[in-house]
């Protein structure tokens, strides 16, 4: 091979053709990346930003369906089949097939979701949580109405109402433990000393229920003071039915800063002590023998919006 001018010319032509083919290939590659093109157009201000409005039907009703069944494999992290379904914008870019996923007829999304669940091409793939008929119908409805990112729920009167979602807030055991910490020792001590009397309101609560039933014959003003000194600020419910406490204990009760339910049937209370008790800052419910209650007292309790439950003895 000699570097005659003729041959050099040939070599040049070869590399020009190769260059052109490379450029062509690059163009085809970029064209198969619609999200790049959209980005460039948006950056140049040629098109508005492609996204669904916040109040759109898509965002409130369609997106959650994809969220639930599809994005585990079709988001920025995975993009299986080069498809992302984590937003209206991404849905527009379609996947490897470059099919138009916004067309109403022969929509690839719908077609693959409607395949029998064991089909090799079914979406979501076999073994995954599958969408319901209603959810599929909703997507179809959205498609037939133009696959819009702006129409709102009001534009879809025929769509069944959105199901209420009840979410359980996750229990943070660490915080609960932290909240219980300050009185943990006292609670423990009392529980050992008086079994069955003291317990937490719930597994997630740091507040206490005191039920004096097991020791009602011994439960007097002194014992109440002992409880109050130890755990008074975290008592929420206090059942003192048929105990030996006297009206003097009202002063103690008034210092319990989180007390909301108090039960004192079978306990003698003077009229003016009951009036005093109505000033309790957190009390919500009071159970008391009917005989101590008159109209005046009832009025006061209604004013304080404390529920007064009168118990008939006998």
């Amino acid at each position, binding site marked *: *091979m000699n570097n005659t001018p003729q041959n050099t010319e040939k*070599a040049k032509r070869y590399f020009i053709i190769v260059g052109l083919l490379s450029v062509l290939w690059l163009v085809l590659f970029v064209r198969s990346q619609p999200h790049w093109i959209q980005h460039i157009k948006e950056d140049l201000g040629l098109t508005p930003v492609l996204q669904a409005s916040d109040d759109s039907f898509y965002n409130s009703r369609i997106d959650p369906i994809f969220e639930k069944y599809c994005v585990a494999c079709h988001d920025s992290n995975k993009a299986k089949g080069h498809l992302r379904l984590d937003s209206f914008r991404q849905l527009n870019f379609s996947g490897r097939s470059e099919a138009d996923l916004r067309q109403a007829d022969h929509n690839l999304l719908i077609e693959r979701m409607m395949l029998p669940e064991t089909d090799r091409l079914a979406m979501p793939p076999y073994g995954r949580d599958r969408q319901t008929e209603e959810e599929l119908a909703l997507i179809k409805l959205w498609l037939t109405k133009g696959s819009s990112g702006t129409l709102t729920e009001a534009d879809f009167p025929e769509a069944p109402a959105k199901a209420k979602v009840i979410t359980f807030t996750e229990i943070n055991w660490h915080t609960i433990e932290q909240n219980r910490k300050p009185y943990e020792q006292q609670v423990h001590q009392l529980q050992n000393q008086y079994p069955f009397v003291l317990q937490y309101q719930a597994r997630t609560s740091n507040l206490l229920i005191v039920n004096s039933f097991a020791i009602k014959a011994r439960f007097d003003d002194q014992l109440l003071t002992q409880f109050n000194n130890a755990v008074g600020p975290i008592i929420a419910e206090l059942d003192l039915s048929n105990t030996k406490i006297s009206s003097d204990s009202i002063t103690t009760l008034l210092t319990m800063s989180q007390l909301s339910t108090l039960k004192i049937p079978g306990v003698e209370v003077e009229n003016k002590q009951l009036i005093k008790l109505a000033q309790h800052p957190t009390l919500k419910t009071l159970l008391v023998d009917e005989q101590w209650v008159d109209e005046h007292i009832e009025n006061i309790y209604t004013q304080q919006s404390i529920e007064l439950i009168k118990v008939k003895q006998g």
Partner: protein
Amino acid sequence: MKTLKIWDSATRIFHWALVINIVAAWYTIENRLIELHEIAGHCLIGLLVFRLIWAILGSRTSRFTHFVVQPFAALRYLNKSIRLQAHHQVGHNPAGGWMVIVMMCVLGFQVFSGLLSNDDLGFSGALSDHVSKALSDTFTQLHRYSFNALVTLIWLHLVAVFFYVLIKKDNLIKAMFTGKKTVEQAPVKPLYFAPTSLALLCGLIAGAFSYWLF
């Protein structure tokens, strides 16, 4: 002018098996045949391992020592070759030698990342159980990206090969099939060709390794 054997059959078979398996790996994944894709991948592991052994123990023209030269010498050759001022006849040319290294590295990464990949449908590469799911997901992405790099390299490879065939009128492709080439002058020292039995042994070892991974 003289006809000379430059490529032993092991290297030739290696090359075309490589081509077939890469096409197979691509075709199978495009058609969602992940099990077959894995087989093609493991064949490629075997081929790569074989080629590495062969680059040390094999025939003269297949050895690293024959075709890996100083990088600057390779660039100088590339520059001259494009201007038709230099021509290399026996074995890989200095620039092509580096191309072989780079291709083997990218291909090596392709199979390595494949081994750590998963498809979220219950399939996972042979080594992916040894890493976390998150890491496996990352390698699955890298596996996708590195295929683009591989395709680009193959394109460059073909551009170079056809430059020789069409412009330099040196039919490398035929040589890769027949092993023979017409050269102006035979090398002073005759080329060494390793015995076929050694090739078979190396192939067996590489195949066993790949199968053991499977």
